[in-house]
């Protein structure tokens, strides 16, 4: 996932003009400030997972890997999101969220867009309608016709409305955009799993969608490690993995998500770096002969470490194909 920021584009200017006609007193933000994604609400944590390859977690050298190794991935999937505060009204933030997702397939070693499901770009306006009575009275129909509106001031599951604090409303908007992006990614992933023919390298986990989590084509590669699925001695083993080594396979069963099998893989030498350097976690659907499968997919992922994704700061973990998706989406969204 790429969270990008940029100045006001044509789309945001159009949305602003629309709102200014509907909502007198709108205070326009200079430069349409972009918002960095909020840090996840969950704190960094260690969580135990059941090892399903052997009895205890250990380091496994990925066999038969060489620079000549071929990758089995035929496609890459990623999504992007952009959150821009374009105006305020009475202190209430008015936000435009843009989400996009695309599958890029590899043909003759070059990446191109999957023609069967073209990339999707969606834009919405995120407003706290509860605190913008003027707009609420006018109704959002006129705007909805051209710009879908998401109300960021709805009551939560417990029936409580969010505070009128602008920061709270902005966080709500950002989380809503985040969810939109995940839904778009899931939709794309499901489409690939239904129509695709080769394994797909997905940026992030695969467990949100049941059909994706059970597909043999989906391989999720997670770069962030706010939650480490190891405890005790196993943590040392994972953080001590050397380049070309993986951990034993374990099962990840998040709440309200599908269960998948997972393992850690060190893509690059860690000497002189922090322990998470070049470390990714892989998610695939549960299958038999899991060791062979883990080794094969690990070889594929390692084969994707060239070309480097520089100058992206995440180049130690970011596959070039995923970066290509992001660059593509940046160009069209």
């Amino acid at each position, binding site marked *: 996932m790429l969270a990008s920021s940029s100045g006001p584009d044509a789309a945001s200017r159009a949305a602003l003009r629309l709102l200014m006609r509907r909502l007198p007193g709108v205070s326009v933000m200079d430069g349409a400030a972009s918002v960095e994604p909020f840090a996840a609400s969950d704190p960094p944590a260690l969580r135990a997972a059941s090892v399903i390859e052997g009895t205890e977690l250990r380091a496994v050298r990925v066999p038969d890997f060489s620079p000549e190794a071929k990758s089995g991935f035929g496609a890459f999937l990623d999504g992007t999101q952009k959150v821009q505060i374009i105006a305020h009204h009475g202190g209430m933030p008015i936000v435009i969220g843009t989400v996009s997702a695309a599958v890029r397939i590899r043909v003759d*070693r070059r*990446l191109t867009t999957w023609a069967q499901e073209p990339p999707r770009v969606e834009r919405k306006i995120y407003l706290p309608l509860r605190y913008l009575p003027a707009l609420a009275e006018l109704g959002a129909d006129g705007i909805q016709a051209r710009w879908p509106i998401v109300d960021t001031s709805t009551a939560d599951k417990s029936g409580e409305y969010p505070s009128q604090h602008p920061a709270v409303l902005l966080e709500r908007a950002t989380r809503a955009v985040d969810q939109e992006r995940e839904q778009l990614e899931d939709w794309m992933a499901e489409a690939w799993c239904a129509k695709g023919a080769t394994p797909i390298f997905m940026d992030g986990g695969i467990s949100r969608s049941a059909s994706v989590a059970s597909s043999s084509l989906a391989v999720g590669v997670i770069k962030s490690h706010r939650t480490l699925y190891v405890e005790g001695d196993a943590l040392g083993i994972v953080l001590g993995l050397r380049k070309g080594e993986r951990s034993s396979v374990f099962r990840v069963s998040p709440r309200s998500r599908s269960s998948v099998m997972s393992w850690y893989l060190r893509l690059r030498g860690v000497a002189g770096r922090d322990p998470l350097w070049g470390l990714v976690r892989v998610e695939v659907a549960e299958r038999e002969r899991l060791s062979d499968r883990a080794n094969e997919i690990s070889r594929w992922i390692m*084969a994707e470490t*060239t*070309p480097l994704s520089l100058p992206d700061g995440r180049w130690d973990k970011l596959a070039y194909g995923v970066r290509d998706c992001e*660059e593509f989406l940046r160009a069209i969204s």
Partner: protein
Amino acid sequence: MIEALGRVVATERKPNTPHEFHFWTAISSPVGIGTIVRVDGAQPMDGQIPHIYGIVVEGFSYTDLQSPMHDVLGHDGLPTLAGFASTERAEIRLYTAAVLRQIPEEPLQPVPMGQVFLAEEADVHVALRMDSYLKEGANTGIPVGVYRAGGTDAVIYLDADFLLGPEAAHLNITGVSGLATKTSAVEWLLASLFKHFPEEKGSIAAVCFNVKGPDLCYLDQPGKVEQSDEVLYEKLGVEPRPFQKVEYFAPYTAKGLALNTFRNNEELLDNVTPLTWGLREVLQYAEVLLNKDDIDAKADALIDFITENVVDKEFPPDGILTKNHRVQSFAELDAWFRDILQGLEKKNGESWRTHHVATIRKVRNRLSNISTRCAGLVTDSGAVSDLPFGSFGDKTVYVVDVANLEEDAQDLIFARIVSKLREHLERRDLGVKHLVVFVDELNKYAPGDGPETYVRKMLLDIAERGRYLGLVLFSAQQFRSQVHRRVVGNSGTALFGRMDPDELSTPGYAVLSPATRTKLATLEKGQLMIRHPHFTQPIFVRFPRPAVMQGREGSERYPQSNEISLDAAILRALRPLDPTITLPWVQEITALYTEQEVIRARNATLLARPHDVKAYFSSQFRKIIPAQPAQRPMAGSIRSVPENDPYGF
């Protein structure tokens, strides 16, 4: 409907202008330097979708790599590992095109965004404004080559009005030596010109000065035409065959026996005519051979006097001259000088008719020297054999071979022939309405620096005023930058073959993009870059190999004859006029005469081209009555004296 091959792009740092735009294409796109493309604008202007035609002048390729170091790191410093990467980096082909034409032409605006298409043949015609002179009923197009790009094969036409006048005229070709591109291009273009020159514009002929090598010596002999060239010939509407009407002219060697040309093989002599001039022809152009040190005002006055009052006139004895003179040759002129100088010496005089004796001696020395310096061309006898001024034939090539001559003789031939051509064209009695004069080695004959020469002045004159007369200069050289600017500047059409990189680095080529210059430095044989008044940018074309025998092949197949005996030379000269002439006959007729007399008889016969060659040739010799053995007269008997009459009574 053809597919778009690119899209116009513009950024603040690289904006489009009315004369230049940028576009990207797929990696596999058949676009290259010199490709002509069409942009279809997205927004109509005055109800018309704008079409912009451009030619690619620069290309860029880059990846998303920010630093070369990233690639090194990515492959652990081992280039061999780079080939194993599962994915190629994203790569762009970005091109810059120079605008050839915008439609509508007003208002002239920066090139808009739009799709880019490979130009088809019809697009090429519009892009190069050829549609203005390829109209039905008013077609003045002369095919010069085929533009090829992608799947497009389009004939490129020059406008005859801008190639031969009167709108513009002259053609100049530049290229490195040794590839035969310059000569081949001119040969091809002449063939095309003869085939396609519009009938209503009148007749056309060409005079080619062969200044080096044998390349122009076999224009009437068929050469090898490969299949790929046949395709080009068909496309260009020209038959792949040698020139049908070619006449060669060459002076004799210094000895005067054989013609001084690469084409003096006996099998090829039927259309080779000797080029010989006498005193009158040379005196008119004495300025060519005499430098400024030779000719001061006094000497000039004496030469004028000789030209006006002496040559071809009866010059009676005066106080100094002892006898009547009629000067028609260098030998007779020398006798005239000798008579004057002897007369002055006898009378101890210092001047004759206001001409000082020193001036007379100087002029005698310089003029007498001409026949030595231009031996083979200038005859002592005064015999003249010349180009057929006044009866030039339509679509005929006249080749004057001066390749083996001394520089002085080359200059004299060039100056006199061009002057005569000009005179006849001014009088409209040359025989043809348009005449192309081809001169190679302009670096030598019209250099940008160096002393002012008669030949350079003549070339400048043709370049600046020739088009009004129908006299068109096709010139060639290796280094355009070193040719006089007014000669190349007046050439409406310029062709460029493969160029020397040093030459390309001179300021004259700064208008070309680096990529275009690189392409020029690596052009294949048979490719040219063309600049023409209708084309706003240079265009690259291919032309077919000329269907004439190349110089090297011709000189191997028809080797040049070495110096031969007098009898053989006479036989070789006369046999084309009368095939029944044999060597024994020549030997019998010439046995009693001197070499000079025999050569004079040969020259007279060749000039007259009589019906009865044998009789005419024989009649040129003075009568020699064979010596009769003296008969002893019968001695009368001595009458005996009677013994008885001792006194004889």
